[in-house]
């Protein structure tokens, strides 16, 4: 370990001790092809317990890469990254992930798909089933408990994926453009529901999107990222009180913030 890395380590341990910090990154970087392609360059950030943080930026800014590193699905090439104070080494059970595609198992009913995370740990009990059904209720799929994925619309499939994510019991939720493949109306409705549900389960949330309005509307903080090489440009605080009505997006204050973020993205 070289001198800089050691320095970073000390810095990090100080930061990690900060009150309520759940995810902490110091100069987190990722290169591909032996350093030829820089996907993410030295990102440093702290995310507090219960925060909803959006990662916004154009394609190639490294936002999905960063999310996958937090999830422990890919290894970082530099820097330190901790979750609950422990360096990330691989997938953790207290970190749940949701993708743009619902990625359900076609041969399983909604209920069985939601029970999948539990099956990794133990044989699901009646209590687990009850919980899964309650989650399906929560995401509005009361009448589709025993339906198969291909019988559901895209939006409904994402709802099942969301219920499955919640069934992991993870207190950190990583969402990679979860409703990106859906139409505008469905996406907006699901975003509203997501806000409600996340507040209800009191999870810390990282939400990747390339839609600035969506990023601001949902989040307490917005990590604005710029491409080539991927870089964390700025962390923007979102001051609006919760619960937030959909109409918030029409106010001048909201649009001023959208313009600010667009400026940051534009100047890079």
């Amino acid at each position: 370990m070289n001198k800089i890395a050691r320095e970073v380590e000390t810095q990090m341990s100080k930061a990690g001790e900060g009150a309520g910090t759940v995810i902490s990154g110091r100069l987190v970087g990722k290169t591909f092809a032996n350093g030829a392609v820089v996907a993410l360059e030295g990102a440093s950030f702290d995310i507090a317990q219960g925060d909803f943080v959006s990662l916004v930026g154009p394609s190639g800014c490294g936002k999905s890469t960063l999310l996958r590193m937090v999830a422990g699905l890919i290894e970082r090439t530099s820097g330190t990254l901790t979750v609950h104070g422990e360096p990330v080494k691989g997938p953790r059970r207290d970190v749940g992930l949701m993708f743009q595609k619902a990625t359900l198992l076609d041969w399983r009913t909604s209920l069985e798909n939601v029970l999948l995370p539990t099956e990794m740990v133990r044989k699901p009990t009646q209590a687990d089933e009850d919980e899964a059904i309650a989650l399906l209720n929560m995401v509005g799929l009361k009448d589709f408990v025993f339906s198969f994925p291909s019988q559901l619309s895209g939006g409904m499939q994402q709802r099942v994926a969301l219920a499955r994510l919640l069934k992991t019991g993870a207190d950190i939720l990583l969402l990679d453009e979860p409703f990106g493949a859906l139409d505008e109306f469905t996406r907006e409705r699901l975003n509203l529901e997501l806000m409600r549900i996340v507040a209800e389960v009191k999870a810390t949330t990282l939400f990747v999107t390339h839609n600035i309005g969506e990023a601001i509307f949902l989040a307490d903080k917005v990590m604005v990222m710029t491409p080539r090489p991927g870089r964390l440009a700025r962390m923007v605080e979102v001051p609006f009180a919760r619960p937030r009505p959909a109409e918030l997006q029409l106010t001048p204050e909201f649009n001023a913030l959208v313009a600010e973020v667009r400026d940051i993205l534009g100047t890079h």
Partner: protein
Amino acid sequence: MALAADMAPDAARLKWRRRGNHAAIFLGLLALWQGGSSAGLLDPLFFPAPLDILASFWRIYVSQGNVWYHLYVSLSLVLAGFTAGSILGVGLGAVVGMNATVRRFLQPYVIVLEATPRIAVAPLLIAALGFGPQSKIAIIMLVCFFAPFINTLSGVINVNRDRMELMRSLGASKMQMLRKLVLPDAIPVIMAGERLAMTSALSGVLVAEFIQRDQGIGALILTYTRNLNMASAFACILTLTAIGFLIFKGMEMVDHHVAYWKNETGMKRMTEKRARVWAGRRGGVAHA
């Protein structure tokens, strides 16, 4: 709705008229064939008369009743060879598919073996295993092995990347990955391989019995042909047509059942079943 109600009788009438047309054409051809045979225009060596074939059916199935034994022998071999060959194919396919190193080393051999016509090896198998059912079963195993093997292999290799990542993010072990994702995901492809294998099994048993013509439906066809009893040979062949058709339909049914999520009726059936099981366990009311 009113429209559908108006359409329904028309559609039904059309369907029956079509069936009637088919039957008329078929009977017409048969009559022509019979007429040609009676008039001596058709060589009975190539085209035994339909009525003669019908008489042969009666003889081999009823009055003489000799076909039953041979059918029993052949179909037992088919069942044994198919089961052994396809289990071996699926098992080996899964092992090879799951292990990158094994796959790399075996791949060239698989390609070479796949390019070799399987039937060509049949005489060698008989030489190695001797006359008797064991070498016949080996031949059937050989023709039944490859389709399930190749399909299982490709099914296991081509597992959806996103689903792999999902399972990894859930902390799945290698065994859980195999049981909960890889194998179920490969089932439709494996079943397609099994369907192919089952069809090959029928050809396989015939080849085996043509080579060792002691018993079985293949041997029977050979005997009848040598005695120039073409009508009886035809009756045997038509029997095989029927069996082939039944096998095809049967495998289709099994496929629909096993890969239930690939068809609407299958999913509907499973939805009802799961809801019923759940309700039964809870002593409550079905949920869906």
